[in-house]
Structures are given as C-alpha cells and as structure tokens.
C-alpha cells in the first residue's frame, strides 16, 4: 500500500501535468495553427488572396485536432516531444518555402 506522502506526491504531479497539458494545448495548438495555415497561404496554387482565405477558413481545424490530441494521448512524454517535433517540422517547411514568422 502506498504511503500517504506518496499519494500526495502523485496528486501534485498529476495536477502539474494537467496544467502543462493545458499550456501545451493552448499555445502549442495556436502555433501549430499559425504555422500550418501560413504554410497553406504560402503554397496553395491559386491567387494570393484566395490562398490566404482558404488558409484562414480551414486553419481552425488544426487547432481543434491538436487540442484533442494533447488531451487524448496517454503518454505525457509523447505529447511533449511530439509537439516540439511538430513545431520544428512545420517551421522548417515554412522557412524552406521562403516564409517567415
């Protein structure tokens, strides 16, 4: 049986993880959305105004998917590393196409 101290410790850790997930979901989700829709605005093969409007109207979907993933994924490590990886890949691709942030 775990000691009382141990369960307390676990409860604090759990709360910290929840807070961290909210942080990752809100800000990570926002920057994934920014990068992904910037990438769309930059690369969609139409006029620049049309590309921008397509990117903006679809961008919100990215936010929702990321948010759900951050809370749906069991492993916190996967969420944390996955988010960093995703942001790096998106940022790399954006700069590759000549975009900037």
């Amino acid at each position, binding site marked *: 049986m775990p000691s009382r101290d141990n369960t307390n410790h676990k409860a604090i850790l759990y709360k910290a993880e929840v807070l961290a997930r909210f942080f990752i979901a809100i800000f990570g989700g926002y920057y994934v959305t920014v990068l992904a829709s910037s990438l769309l605005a930059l690369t969609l093969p139409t006029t620049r105004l049309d590309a*921008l409007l397509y*990117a*903006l109207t679809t961008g919100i979907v990215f936010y929702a998917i990321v948010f759900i993933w951050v809370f749906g994924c069991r492993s916190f490590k996967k969420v944390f590393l996955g988010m960093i990886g995703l942001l790096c890949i998106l940022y790399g691709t954006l700069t590759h196409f000549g975009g900037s942030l």
Partner: protein
Amino acid sequence: MRESFFRSMTWLHTWVGLLVCWLLFLIFFAGTASFFRHEISLWAQPATHHLPHYESAQQNETVKKSIERFQEIAPNAESWRIEMPTERRPSLLLMYSEKPAEGERRGKRHSEYLDPVTLEALPEFRETKGGNFFYRLHFDLHYMSAITARWIVCFATLFMLIALISGVVIHKRIFKDLFQFRNGKGLRSWLDAHNVSSVVALPFHIMITYTGLVTLIFMLLPQPAEQRFEDTKTLRAERYPFLAEIPETGQPLTDLALNKALDHYFTNSGDAPLRRIVISSPGDSGATIKLYANAQRAVQDDPPSWMYSAASGELLKTHNVTLSGAENLYGGMIALHTGRLAEPLLRWLYFIAGLAGCAMIATGAVMWAKRLRQKLKGGDKPGVGLRLVESLNLGTIMGLPAATAMFFYANRLLPMELSSRADKEVLAFFVTWGVFTLAALFKSNRLAWLLSAKVNAIVWGLLPVVNMLTTEGNLVSYFINGQWVLFGFDAIAIGIAIGFLVQAKKLGSTKAAPTTPRRQAKREVTA
C-alpha cells in the same frame, strides 16, 4: 490522459466547458438576441413604428430626393451616404461627413433618419442603441477596448469548439440520448436536458462557433497574411478595391451623372434592390458613385457593388460581383454566422437554435454545481469554489434575462431629453445584472432561484403593459394592423414570462424541495 481516451475526453469536456461557461452564456445570449437586431431596434424606436412598408419600386425616386437634400444641406461634404430602407429597417438613413479639419484624420459625421417617402425628419426620434447593443455586446463586450474584448471572446470561442468536439466524442449513444428525457429525476434530468439541448441543435452549435472564429480570423491569425502580402495596406487594397482613393481634380462637378449610373446598375444587378449609395467628394469632378446591392438571400456577406465616375457615369470598378471559390467560402461562412440572409422563418430557427445553445451552457453549468454538491459528505460545508460557481450560475443565468428586460424598460421610461440617453439604457442593463450577481453571492440556494424566477416573470410579463402605456400601440393594435415585428416582440416577452412562471412553479413544488430532517419532522407533526 492516463485513463482511456473516452475518460479523458469527458474530463476535457467538463473543464474547457466550465472555465468559460459564464462568458460563453453571455456571448450566446447576446448573439441570439442579435439575430433580431433590426427588430429590436425597430421596437426601441417608436418614431418608426408607423412608417409604411417600403416598396423597392420607389427606390429611384428616394435616391434622387436624397441627393437633392444633400445638395441643399451639405454641398461641400467629404462624402454622402444613403442607407436605403429595407424590410427590416423602414426608415431612410442619410449620413454625411464634413471635410476633415487641419490635423484631423476624419471629419465630423452627421446622420439623420427620415421618412423615406416624404423625406421629413421623424418626430420624437429617441437616442437609443436598440438591437445594436446586443450585437456589440456579443463580441465587443462593454467597458473595455474592443480589441481586448475580441481576444477574450476568441479564447472563449476556441474553448467552446473544443468542448463541442469532446462532447460529441463522449456521446457514444447520440441518438439514444436524444430521445431520452427523465423528468423529475434530479441530476439525471439536468444531464438529459443538457444532452437534448446540445444534440438537437448540434450542427448549429458547431457552425456558429466555427464561423464565429472565422469572423475574427484576421485578428486571431494575422501571420498567414504576412506570408504573401507586404503589409496590411496592400492586403486591404486587394480585398477591398474600392478603398483605393481616386484623387480630386480640383474642378467643380457641374452635373452628377446619377441617372446613367442607376440605369447601368438596374440593368446589370439582376433586380437586386439598392442597399447603400456612397458618393465621395461630391463637389469635385473626380467624385465617384458607389452603389451597393442588397444581397438578400444570397449566402454572401459583403454585398456586390459597382463604382461609377460621378462626372461621366462610366463604370470604373466592380467588387464582389463575381466571387472566386475562396471568397465564396469565406464570405459564406460569415453570412451563415450573421444570418443576415435569413427570411423570417429561418431567422426564427436561428433564434430557437441560439436559445438551445444558451440552455446547453446553462444546464451544463448547473449540473456541475449539482455534482459537486452531491459529492459533499453529510456534514461538510461547501467550499468557496462551489459557492462561487453557484453564485455565478444564478447571477448570470437569471441576471441576464432580467437585465435585458430592464434595458427595454429604460428605453421606454427614460425621459427623451436626457443627455447621453443611450448610455443610460446600457447602464440599466449592467446595474441590474450587477445587482443580481451581488445578491447571488450573498445567497444562491433554491429560494434565491425561485425568487429570481418570479422577478423575471414579473418584469417580462409587465413589459408589454409598459409598452402599451408609453407608446401608441399595444398587442391588439399590432395584431389588427399586421405589425408583426412589434406583435412578435410582445409575444416573446409574454412567452419568456410564462417560461419563468413554469420554472418558479417547479422550483416551488414541495416534491423537488430538499427534505431536511427538521422539515420532515414538522410534516409528520402536522400530519
């Protein structure tokens, strides 16, 4: 998270929903009212109640008369603007702005509301915000800068979107839940009410939340625009080609070629009535005439518009007359959100779906408080958190309807000559809401809910009476004269009053009242 996907979605649904539920309730509440924005404005402005139904066949005549009036009262204005009467706003609105003084960016603006046929000023025109108050409140809030407010609203809306998606995930039995309502079963009934109000209007909730974000998307996501546009100025110029200034020539304009422009418009616009006419630098030969069509039932928010040279009547540019796929998508989403395209029947559907949204948020918030209370062990005192939640629930859910009623009372009862009268109406709204919330902080038990329901029933029930005493019309005369908007307003007020009466009756029934041991003992004695 550590539990199954389903469990973590339930958790997520609860928390993202609850963190912003009161703000969301305000946004949904004010947004629902703004579907009837013009109708509320009409009610709030008795001076326009007797204007006859405007026929668009008279448009040519109205435009010409308006121009004559402008030439008389403001020949040297910076611009003239005519807002044509519509089915929903019967008065004619003439606006002009003076040339900006040295060092000012914009000149002083003047506006007047007129009878569209005689072009006479409307008597006893009162200063009021009308339906616009709710429209602004819905995304600009109040007592803070619009930009801050919009960021707050965007944040809450993003949470709403997440709450909706996780809500769908946790509803494994979506259709079974739809037909399940267990009345009078305490917490179960609240859950069922929450499910019914969410599921019935689910497509509407998702649509309105998503498109709501789209309306503010240029503020929320400015970065994509920066990828291909040098600055916001070039972007604006490309989105709104009419903004490009046509330089003044310095030569006076001898003859305004309005007829030619109107002829071209009416042969090319496919019978769409005019919505707005803007003539910029009307005294100069470089002046332009811009004609905006009333998009009517089209799923398009920015109206198709034509720009002509005022000197020659030649067509210079068009805007939104043909749309690309992307423009259709973007404009269509905004049009769906605002519902301006809706005919009365569809607008009623929007309104009912909006009410379902309010009910969804309210039942969710109440259910949370009930769950927390149920978890309390026998002798435990409720904590500060639970009491705060209960108070905010009561203050918001019952306070906002009462505040709205007081806003309407202020419109009818405040003296006409009061300075900044419109602001006083708004003050009445916020003071009422504040009083409700303060009272709720003090007490938020069943008795407080019962009392609030009664107060709401009384103020809404008396609203048609006060209207009858302070204006010329009443429920019966509206019915006889076919003034359906005004009739509808009174009918809604009575409907709301009845709703609150039913609620008060439910809250007051002994069956649902918690039976404390003391009361039980008393009952046994009396029995």
